[in-house]
């Protein structure tokens, strides 16, 4: 029986808040779609925007970047710089013609296990509606 296409979503989670939130969702046995592949980074501010661009160009159907809430960064201001960087990156990606619903940014704190599950539900449903990443045929 042919399996329905499932999107592959790369999730960059900051170690101190978002990854801990995901961990909490796990220990609380909350159900959420299994489509994400998590990459742990020390801080959302560490993330070179080229990683997101490369993920999309290499065929990822969606990318999610999640950090600490502004003001709560473990490294004080990393997520503040990341905020500016990612708004600009989204603008550039959209101008180049990539659907904005493929790339998502959000803030999830370490105690928001339930919210993390909701975020993954939302992102997966949005990406699923868009279909496979057509740019993959490029490489």
């Amino acid at each position, binding site marked *: 029986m042919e399996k329905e296409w499932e999107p592959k979503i790369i999730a960059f989670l900051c170690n101190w808040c978002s990854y801990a939130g995901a961990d909490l969702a796990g220990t609380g046995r909350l159900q959420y779609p299994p489509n994400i592949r998590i990459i742990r980074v020390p801080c959302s501010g560490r993330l070179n*925007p080229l990683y997101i661009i490369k993920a999309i160009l290499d065929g990822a159907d969606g990318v999610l970047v999640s950090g600490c809430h502004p003001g709560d960064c473990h490294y004080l201001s990393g997520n503040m710089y990341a905020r500016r960087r990612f708004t600009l990156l989204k603008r550039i990606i959209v*101008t180049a*013609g990539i659907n904005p619903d493929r790339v998502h940014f959000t*803030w999830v704190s370490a105690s928001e296990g339930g919210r993390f599950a909701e975020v993954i539900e939302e992102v997966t449903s949005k990406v699923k509606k868009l279909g496979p990443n057509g740019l993959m045929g490029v490489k």
Partner: protein
Amino acid sequence: MGDKLISICKNLLEENRVSLILAFTGRELDNQAVPYFIRDLKEVVNIKWDEYCTPNLAKYLLEKQIELKTQEQGKDKIGIVAKPCDARAIVMYLVEKQIHRDDVYIIGMECNGMKVQDGSLSPGCHECSVRVPPIYDVLIKSSGEIIYFDGKELEGDRKSTVAKVKTFEYPKTSPPPINKENDLERFRNEIEKCILCFSCRQACYGCYCPTCFIDRSMPDWHTDDLNEGTKMLFHLGRAMHLAGRCIECGACERVCPSGVKIRYLIREANDFCKKVYGYTAGLDPTQKPVLAQFNKDDKEIGFLGGVNE
């Protein structure tokens, strides 16, 4: 303007206020000007100034500065003939702390647009609203009037120029709004012409990294042959590195041998910075770069559950 320029350069060299001047000279073909580096008084007569002096001389400051600093006499001043876009590049070098203000003597020239070899306006000159350099030590206006910078913050032409740039809106026909994902075809068509010669990177004032990201092997951003994916990666990556730093000089489009119209991508990011962060590159040497600062009330446009939209 040309003869006033020659007399000012002669003065500077005679009084030993600079040891090197970056200017333009002509060549055998008409409608062409090439960069000219003058160290000697008798070379000054060859200086030329007309509407074909299109290249941007600011990038030479970085390499010539190193050359002069290694000489026996220690640091020496460099004079540079600066159009408004060159002056904006120098302001950005000051913002990013690549040069000292005291190492440069800027001869500002008022500019009404420069032409390429076939007589048409250079890309970027058509919509440019910065006709007077935002920074100079001496300014030569189109009428021939010479103004020396007397230390006052912003006066006369410069104030109105800066005000005009800050409120300038690109015509509605150019960039499309952010919600329409309509431009994959446009992007793909432009990228198809690209041959990854990197002329745009060589010509841009802002691309001065000793090793460009696309040439690095740690991390290796492009691992395959030079195909469409690499081209997209290069142009998107370069747009991201120049977002908020582009001075809109049009050199990238002018030097492209394949005619790739790549400016619209970086222009989007620049417009965004102007509107949302109130930041225009290259006008104020005391600013911090736009991505090196933050505000706790920054807008989170496009974020999931974003506040301050």
